[in-house]
């Protein structure tokens, strides 16, 4: 028989109480969070109401809501948001379809299932910048492999302003579908087998089984994947920055980067960061509410 450890008494014998041990673990994390997250967040909120430029020694002057007003009236910024929205929709939708579809294919007894799953996960283990440079070569109209394989001649994936965003989104889909696949696989394996057996006895068709059993039961975990991927896609930077310089691919985080670190409009960029933050929070909230509804069903 195994005797349970009396942890508190052992810790006490070393001179540390349970509370001390808890604090020892929690306090550094809280301090780290306050110093590197909460404090800059509040500090930058203050800057967003000023004309501060970090590249000069001039003091920050309070300008009220001017930065927010100018940003929200700037057609270029709205264009950046429109590009971002389009990118998020195409990319996340693509990842859900490909990721969930792959998970459905893998959710059965097939040879080398473990190896195939591991290989499929490889893209998301690569660095975003490396993937961007790699796909830039693949898309090249003169020596790119994609045009050669598809026999598309000199088709311009990144050079055509109408195609460039889809090319960037496609790369993102290639990279992050495995993430959706992984979560979907976890959801699919948790669906009780007896439900499928009962559906088979009732002679339910594959579509009926999918829409009435599989999808509703996997939906909560799929929604979590969608939340993560939407947040990531909304703040995407590396891929779009490395792959293309077309205005049609300038997502909001690229604009924010240029404003903050090339133009050194610190106050204005803080305001833009807050606008982006509020938008991401709003979208996430909508998703979370929907997720809760799905869970309640």
């Amino acid at each position: 028989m195994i005797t349970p450890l009396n942890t508190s008494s052992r810790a006490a014998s070393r001179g540390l109480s349970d509370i001390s041990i808890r604090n020892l673990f929690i306090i550094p994390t809280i301090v780290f969070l306050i110093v590197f997250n909460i404090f800059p967040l509040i500090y930058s909120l203050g800057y967003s109401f000023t004309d501060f430029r970090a590249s000069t020694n001039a003091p920050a002057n309070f300008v009220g809501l001017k930065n927010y007003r100018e940003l929200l009236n700037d057609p270029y910024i709205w264009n950046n948001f429109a590009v971002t929205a389009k990118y998020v929709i195409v990319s996340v939708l693509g990842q859900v379809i490909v990721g969930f579809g792959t998970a459905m294919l893998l959710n059965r007894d097939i040879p080398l299932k473990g190896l195939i799953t591991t290989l499929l996960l490889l893209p998301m283990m690569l660095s975003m910048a490396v993937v961007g440079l790699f796909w830039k070569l693949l898309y090249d109209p003169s020596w790119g492999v994609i045009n050669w394989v598809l026999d598309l001649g000199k088709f311009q994936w990144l050079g055509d302003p109408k195609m460039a965003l889809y090319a960037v989104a496609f790369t993102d889909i290639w990279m992050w579908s495995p993430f959706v696949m992984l979560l979907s696989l976890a959801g699919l394996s948790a669906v009780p087998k007896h439900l499928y057996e009962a559906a088979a006895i009732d002679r339910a068709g594959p579509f009926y089984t999918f829409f009435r059993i599989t999808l509703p039961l996997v939906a909560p975990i799929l929604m979590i994947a969608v939340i993560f991927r939407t947040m990531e896609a909304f703040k995407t930077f590396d891929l779009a920055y490395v792959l293309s310089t077309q205005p049609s691919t300038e997502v909001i985080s690229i604009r924010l980067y240029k404003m903050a670190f090339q133009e050194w409009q610190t106050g204005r960029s803080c305001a833009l960061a807050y606008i982006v933050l509020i938008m991401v929070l709003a979208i996430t909230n909508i998703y979370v509410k929907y997720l809760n509804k799905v869970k309640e069903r």
Partner: protein
Amino acid sequence: MRKLVTSVLAGIGLTLACGTSVYAQEKSLTIFWAEWDPANYLQELGNEYEKETGVKITVETTPWADFQTKAFTEFNAKGSAYDLVVGDSQWLGAASEGGHYVDLTDFVKENKVLDKMAPATVKYYSEYPGNSGKYWAIPAEGDAVGWAYRKDWFEDPKEMEAFKAKYGYELAVPKTFKELTDIAEFFNRPDQNRYGIAIYTQNQYDGLAMGFENALFSYGGELGDFSTYKVDGVINSDKAVAAAENYRKLFGFTPPGWTNAFFVENNQAITENLAAMSMNFFAFFPSLINEASNPNAKNTGFFANPAGPGGEQFAALGGQGISVVSYSNNKEEAMKFLQWFIKDETQKKWAALGGYTCNKSVLESAEFQNATPYNKAFYDTMFKVKDFWAVPEYAELLQQLNQRVYPYIVNGDGTAKDTLDALAKDWDATFKKYGRVK
């Protein structure tokens, strides 16, 4: 136990004491620059300085992509990590008005820098505001946008005959933008995977601006009046419009997908047999004469930016000046290094190592001009260069140029006139925002 702790503490104390005394004796300077070959040449030059004076020089580098960000982050933090910085000419306004650079006006006058260096390099690498007589840097790495071309294509008798039959004059290195455009059109043969020209189109920083400026300045156009900040009627003048139209026309003769091209891609255009001519900064030409990096090295020639329709001939300025950082703890040592750096014999060594000197006498020497196939073109260019705005808000002006000019040049949206009219409005609003014009 107590003895052990005492011994360890004593050991640490002794180490620190010895370390401090060693550091106190050793003089050193850290120079910050972008990661490229000239920085390695400067390190070699610095090693010479160490041999002569005992002062250790360390050239610290970072990739071009975050050079500006890293430098200004250090400046903003008033950090003393760098004693000197070899900064872009556009930084002069932001760095001088921000108090990050030491005023070198007295140094320039006392050491006769104006007499020693090519006038255009002092004007653009050192002086801010324009024509103010205040200097913040010493010209260090001269650079400008020039051209590389395929000599074997140009000298092929069949090509020469066909060219003369089509255009009525000999195929040779272009002396005007008209000839440049004709040659680009002539060699543009997509069916043979061969294209006329490679130009800068990247709009993430100053690539597109530098390329467009090459056309603008030679067409007799200007960005604006650097003294009054008047831009309307200048950047959208007829000459500027004609320059933009020609740059757009040249884009039509570039390889497919040439929509994000800067120095790497433009050198590839020559090494990969893609284009007959390619624009690039002179600083990137050494790899084109190296057979290890360019299989066409023996067949690659170079020329200066050609003249426009009015006969004016200018080029966009690249390159950097070297400045003393205000927050350095070794300002006096840094000044001594600058005094050594501007000496004629040091500038000769600098040029011999591969650095692009701005020293007049070295540039004019036959030894320098014959040292490489592109040095003559470099010499021709460095006396007729013009630069982008150097005001602190230059990056905003650059962003506005990219936003307006890129869609016209690359995607063919709108007209040159509408594009430059809109750019003039953007720039005017920016100058008003910063109180430069009322």
